[in-house]
């Protein structure tokens, strides 16, 4: 891994990795190899900031030149197409664990036709890693351990399995880098087709089971209880590697101070408007606002349920992928100890009890 790290540095990649920062394990840009954490610990935040920034500009509306005399409305799209700047910075995500690769797979599917995501993504190199100290979880959904079979479904460039001491490549780019560095890469393709199929279908079958549970347990009292406990702080959704909701919002440059002028012609001071896309949070009431006094899901109970329905129903229905990769970050960041594993188990149990006469 050190060789690869040095190669990335030499080639001017910004390198993101697991690293301890102010006492917590985080994911952030790192400068030297020594600060990279290779343990089996899961950091508190996710990689998504690298490929889906929490706030980015979609395009700007600029004021047209005065002589063009565009009636009243003073703002125009910049450029003919209002085009966006293609990402040029090259980023390497160094040491993504297997479950985070699965989350990336979901992002790649969700934003397959998103020009902003794609222009960033094509400059991102994925170097995966599995620690030799990983421990198996008995619950399939929350098992975070690496297996070669899982690897074959995900998108990555290079992967290092510490236990088997093997490098894998998942793209021509990755192959070329290893070749340049004279590192031998193992194949995980041939002969494992059925094993791969079995492991993928095992994960999927397990997931469909959870989907069914969420689908049928929407009336459970457990939701009422969660609605009372949860603070709607939204930390879980920020930390979750698969949460991808967003808001689209406008910013004035320079910022307007209220009262905002009503006549378009009075917006003289505004130089431009920036349309931004930022992470949305379905735990917040604002996310569900329809009009001034009309809000759907106007209680925390329904918003928590909305979150689970997204992960366990909408995502698998739409993308045929898992909407929760079992990393348990949401539980670890929650100030009131709301535990997804426990909740799922309880919902499952409540259904079983209901079925019994």
């Amino acid at each position, binding site marked *: 891994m050190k060789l690869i790290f040095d190669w990335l540095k030499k080639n001017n990649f910004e390198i993101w990795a697991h690293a301890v920062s102010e006492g917590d394990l985080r994911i952030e840009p790192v400068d030297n190899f020594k600060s990279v954490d290779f343990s089996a610990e899961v950091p508190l935040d996710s990689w998504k900031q690298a490929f889906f920034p929490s706030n980015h500009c979609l395009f700007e509306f600029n004021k047209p030149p005065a002589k063009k005399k565009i*009636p009243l*409305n003073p703002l125009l799209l910049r450029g003919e197409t209002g085009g966006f700047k293609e990402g040029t910075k090259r980023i390497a995500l160094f040491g993504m664990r297997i479950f985070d690769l699965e989350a990336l797979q979901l992002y790649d599917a969700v934003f397959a036709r998103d020009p902003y995501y794609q222009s960033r993504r094509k400059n991102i190199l994925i170097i995966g890693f599995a620690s030799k100290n990983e421990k198996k979880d008995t619950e399939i959904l929350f098992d975070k351990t690496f297996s070669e079979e899982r690897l074959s479904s995900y998108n990555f460039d290079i992967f290092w399995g510490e236990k088997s001491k093997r490098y894998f490549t998942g793209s021509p780019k990755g192959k070329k880098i290893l070749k340049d560095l004279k590192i031998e890469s193992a194949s995980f393709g041939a002969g494992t087709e059925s094993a791969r199929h079995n492991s993928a279908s095992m994960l999927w079958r397990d997931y469909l089971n959870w989907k069914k549970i969420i689908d049928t347990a929407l009336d459970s009292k457990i939701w009422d209880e969660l609605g009372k406990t949860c603070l709607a702080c939204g930390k879980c959704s920020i930390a979750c590697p698969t949460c991808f909701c967003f808001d689209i919002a406008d910013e004035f440059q320079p910022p307007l101070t209220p009262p905002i002028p*009503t006549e378009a012609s009075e917006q003289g001071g505004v130089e431009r408007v920036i349309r931004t*896309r930022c992470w*949305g949070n379905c735990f917040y009431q604002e996310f569900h606002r329809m009009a001034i006094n009309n809000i759907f899901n106007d209680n925390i109970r329904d918003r928590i349920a909305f979150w689970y329905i997204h992960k366990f129903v909408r995502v698998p229905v739409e993308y045929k992928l898992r909407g929760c990769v079992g990393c348990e970050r949401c539980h670890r960041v929650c100030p009131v100890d709301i535990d997804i594993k426990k909740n799922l188990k309880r919902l499952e149990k409540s259904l079983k009890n209901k079925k019994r006469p």
Partner: protein
Amino acid sequence: MKNPYLPRIATIFNKKKEDDDIYLFTLKFRDGTLLNFNPGQFVLAGIPGFGESAFDVCSSPSDKNTFQICVRKVGVNTAKMVDLKINDSIFVRGPFGNGFPIETVRKKNLLLVGGGTGFIVIRGLLQCFLSNGKTSDVLRTSDVEQKKKIQIFYGARDWNSLLFRDEFDSWGKIASLHLILEEPPEMPACPRGLITKLFEITKIIEKPTIIMAGPPMMYKFCLQEIQKRLNVPDNKIYLSLERRMHCGIGVCQHCAIGEKYVCTDGPVFTYEELKKIKGAL
């Protein structure tokens, strides 16, 4: 790769007051492109700095060069929009959503139920039926002449809050219009009450396909009436839903209900689909 977030600039071709704070805008894209929509589809429109809101397109698809939306002042963006004048610009993305299954419903007896501003969607459908149908995706007037079996239920607060009053006569050519008001005027005579009462006092056409647009409360009570009085299968009842939209393309999750998205799977759903989704209505 096409940028789905990029709006087109539309010029306000005409602006007509329908009620206090409600205006009908006729728009035309400045670059000469067309909207090409189905009745029941919506656009996201707004003014830079104030975001975008969803509007049902309420003109006939056969009017190719312009399209109409009805704007009600309910938030910051719409407040800005209703202040605009003829020749000002609005930024528009779309069309989005599924729209009504015109080919299916054109052959049926129709009961159109609209409450308040929900009626804007119904108006779009009527415009479509009324247009002389130069395109194949539009109901030909002759079809309608032959059967003349469209019934319209329209409920509102008072006479002034009825939208499109000057079009009532033209609708009479293809449909029978039944109005009901919470506070009816002395003249013209009009029953007093909520829209549900129309189910009680009107002889409803045979085997209707029902299309409804209005607030969730209206759906709830009208569905009760329908189940009580009529024998209409759930898949022959269409409802148009309203939710907050951000992306319009089924990604941002703002408009999600159960496993569906109002922006891509809707906004038109059958009751058969909706009754399975908790909290949809």
